[in-house]
Structures are given as structure tokens and as C-alpha cells.
């Protein structure tokens, strides 16, 4: 089984670049093929990149608090674009303020994300989840 491909980026108007650069490094080290879109990525850019690279998963980061507004409708757009069922993770500081994680998780799962990760999740955790979900 070849390398799995991930599309990685920070959604919306979010410019938090540090975590993104570290995830890029960590996923690559872990043996994934990473298409890193960097920061300020629109929903359309994720989808284009996923189609182009025949990606196995889309990894969305949102740190700055507008995650709720920015992520609305991404799953539908994926479906429309022919990416039905593509694995979709989201993580970071997803909402404005300090909220109980269960609530946040529920909200983003309803939006169609397969897994939702809280602030400061270490790359090891994400990598383990990816290996499980992608059988890599």
C-alpha cells in the first residue's frame, strides 16, 4: 500500500502558521504525502487540492476562533465535488472562547467532520488516528 495523501491547511482568514508548519513536518516525517496549502485557505482550495492530488483526507486547522463560521458547508461542497465520504479532520481552537470540548466536538461532527480535536493536540495523536482511519 502506497503513501497516503493528506491535504493540510488553516481555514478562512486565519494566519496562524506555526502549528501548520509543524504538522506539515510531523505528517511528512510520519510517512504521509502532504499537500500543504498553508494559511488562509478557502473551502474551494481544499477541494481543488484534494481532487488534484487524489487525497485520502482533508485536515483542517482553525485557531483564531472563526472556525464555526468558516467550516459551515464544507462537507456539502465536498460531496458536490465528488469527494463523497473523504476523511475530514478538524482541530485547533475551533470556537471563540474557552468552551467544554464535548459541545465543540458535537457541533463540528454535525457539520460533517469525522474527528474533532481540541487545542494543543500533539501530532502523535493525530498521526495515530490517521493510521487507524486510513489503515496506513
Amino acid at each position: 500500500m502506497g503513501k497516503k495523501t493528506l491535504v493540510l491547511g488553516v481555514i478562512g482568514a486565519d494566519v496562524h502558521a506555526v502549528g501548520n508548519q509543524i504538522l506539515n513536518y510531523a505528517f511528512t516525517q510520519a510517512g504521509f504525502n502532504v499537500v500543504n496549502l498553508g494559511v488562509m485557505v478557502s473551502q474551494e482550495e481544499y477541494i481543488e487540492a484534494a481532487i488534484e492530488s487524489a487525497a485520502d483526507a482533508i485536515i483542517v486547522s482553525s485557531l483564531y476562533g472563526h472556525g464555526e463560521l468558516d467550516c459551515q458547508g464544507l462537507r456539502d461542497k465536498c460531496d458536490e465535488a465528488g469527494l463523497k465520504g473523504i476523511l475530514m479532520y478538524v482541530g485547533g481552537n475551533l470556537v471563540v472562547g474557552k468552551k467544554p470540548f464535548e459541545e465543540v466536538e458535537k457541533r463540528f461532527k454535525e457539520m460533517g467532520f469525522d474527528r474533532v480535536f481540541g487545542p494543543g493536540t500533539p501530532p502523535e495523536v493525530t498521526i495515530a488516528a490517521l493510521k487507524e482511519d486510513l489503515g496506513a
Partner: protein
Amino acid sequence: MRLSNKKWSEEEFFSQRRQVLAGWPTGKEVDLDEAVAYQKSIPAARRFQEKLNEADKKGVTLIQPRAGVPLIEDHIRLLRHLETEGGADLLPTTIDAYTRLNRYEDAQHGIEESIAEGKAMLNGFPAVNHGVAGCRRVTGAVQAPVQVRHGTPDARLLAEITLAGGFTSFEGGGISYNIPYAKNVPIEDTLLTWQYVDRLAGYYEEQGISINREPFGPLTGTLVPPCVSNAVAIIEALVAAEQGVRNLTVGYGQCGNLVQDVAAIHALREQTREYMDRFGYQDCSITTVLHQWMGGFPQDEAKAFAVICWGSAAAALAKATKVIVKTPHEAMGVPTMEANAAGLRATGQLIHMLADQKMVEDSVLRDEVEQIKREVRCIIEKTLELGDGDIAVGTVRAFQAGVIDIPFAPSRMNAGRIMPARDHFGAVRLLDCGSLPFTKEIKDFHRQKIEERARHEGREVSFQMSIDDIYAISKSRLVGRPRD
């Protein structure tokens, strides 16, 4: 318009102004003569620069939070709470991320969603959408002076509305609000739009109204070597002064090593003064700000308090004119007003307890000051050279050449060739100097410092060190040691 470091004529300024004000309906509310009159009516006690001058004279450090919520009444309640329960000396209004990108439609949507959901759906205060009258309600509702804090590459309309709205200080600059806050905006563009902002502030100054301007010191907030942030601060001070700005606060984000942090503030104050004098801006007032730890925070609140307090200690011992305060919620999300006030109280306690102490100017501290100044000098002199003596033009070319280079920046305009890491004592050094125009001596100094650490850790010098350093704080460390 062609970029050069020359004061704009009134015509240039006023002709561009019409177009700026047309950017969003609230632009119509700005009447410059009326705004000047309004600013004149603000008493000295509520003017930012007056408070800074007073603190500077007394040698004390003022405390200032970050804070902003979408709706006016909530925002007023927030600021009042920080003033009365937190003891803030200076107040902020942090602008939301859509406004920072001039996406006023999205901001409007965020305001409406916030009302509908009954909770904040924006990460700051959308000042442009609230307009001049909305801003005046805010600045008029509190005792302390209020500053606009944001991260906006094109802040022209924001500046027009907020200065007319009674704010007496405005953060940002053409470099510091571009490279860490944008992906695709040319440096030339932001230098131009920030000349506009500075020209506007300068216009108020010409009418006898002090407007404090503050380049954003910490940049990406992550392992930024003092030489890089100090060089950027000085360049932004020079271009601002040329447009008529007379009151500048230059800033620095705490790195964590006490000697380096105190040295950086000393170097910043001394060297900004030197360059300002050299280019004829002797009449500019220079004060300093230290930002408490700007990188990733520990999630635990008790640990976060420790990080906050260490920043307070550095600010107090460095005798920075003010300190920007973090909160125990930092790692989690925009803080509640209670958490924000708690951060302020902890900071105030430490700042005031240390009011009578300062760091002794011994040779170790002095060496570090001189080291930083030498490095800054290399960067600025090369930048001037690249611009044939014009610092603005030189800055554009310096970024192209990697002569100025900011680590971990999202911007494509940034070379991204340098790689910082901590030395054995936690000071931020350069593992890779990239294209910074350093002398051999300086490059050797950095290499030796990093090699000294590597030797102690029994490993090769590598990027892994920088990664370990970024994660160190969440493991209660400053230096990311291999076994941790």
C-alpha cells in the same frame, strides 16, 4: 503611487482619502475637522501618550490587556471590568479577524450571528462596522485611554474611523501587520497603506493632538530573535516619523531568557533613539512595550499564571514603559472578562512589587545589549544600502533578499530562510542565519551558541531543536531538551 520614504503632500493624502472613506458606508461619518475638535475635547488623563509620558518620567511600567468582543455594549462592559477589576492602566480594543482583512461584509454577518446566537461569533470588535459614533461610545465610556490593536495590512479606513472615534493610540505598521498577518500582500503595498495611516496620525499631531503609534513588536511571537524584531520596530518608527508621527512606542515579545529580554528592551530603546536622531526626528518621543510570552501557552491555568508572571518580571526589571498582558485562558480561546482581569491582577501585583528593583547593568547584560545592537545595525545598514539610502524602498528589497526575515511567518513575501533555536541558557539564537547580512563574527557567535547546546544535549544541531523548543513550554520548559 511610488513608494519612497518621503512625507506625503497634503494633496496626495487628501486625494487618496476620498477613496479610502468610500470603502464602507460608515466612512461617510468621518469629518476630519469635527474629529480634530472631538479629539481636542478629550482630557489629558484619557490620552494614551500623556499616560505613557507620565509613566516614563516616573520610571514605572503600565499594564494593558488585549480585549475585544463583537457588540458595543458587551465591549464597554468588558473594558470597564478590566479597568475596575483588573486595574488596567491602559485599555485596548482588539479588532476581529474579518475587519483586519477588510471583509466588512463578513464582519457584519458576524455581528448579526452574535446577536442571533447570543454569544460572540467574532474574535474581536468590528470597529469599522460600528462606525465613528459606535467608537465614541466605547472610548467615552471608560476612564483609561484606549488603543486600537489589530493586525490589519490595510488599516486606512480603520484608522480614519477609530481616530475620529476618540481612540488615542493605534498599533501596527507596514511590516509588522503584514508578514505575520497575511499571506499574499506585497510589502510595498502595506508600506504605502501604513504611510497613509502615519500621515493621518501626523495630521492630527499637526493640529496639536498627540496620537500614540506602536509598531507591533512580537511579529509571529515564536522564537523571534531580538535583532529581527528590533530592526523591524526601528524601521517602522523611522517611516512613521517621516509622515509626521511624533509619539512612538516600540515593542518586543518576551523570549524567556531574562538577560536577553532585558537586553532587548534596553537595546531597542537606545537604538531607536540613535536612528531617530540620525535621521532628524529628535523631537519624537520613544517609549517601550514588552509583550508577555507570545508563543503557545500551557493549557493549565496555574501554569499559565506562571508564564504571565515571568513576563511581568521581565517587563518590570527591564523597566519597559508598558507591558501587554496575557490571560490564564490563552491556550484555550478568547478569554472571559474574569480571566482577563485575573491576568491583569497577577501582572499588576508583580509589576508593582518590583517597581523599586531593576536589572543590574553588569557586563553580561551589557554584552547582550551590544550583541543585539550589532546585529540590528547589520540589518538596517544593509537595508538602507539596498534602498540607496531610502529605508522604505530598502525594506521591500530587504525582504526579497532575505536581509530581513521573520521565522514561522505565513507571508509569501518573507524569505523564510532563517531558523531560530534556543541556546543552552534559553536565549533565542540562530541555528541558520539564512541571508541575514551578518558579519562572520556574528555568524560564528550564533553557531557557537547552538553548538554549545548541542554538545550538552549530546546530539547534532538540527531543525528538531527548534521544534523541541516550540513544544517546550507545554512541558514547562524553555529549552526543548531531547529527553523531555
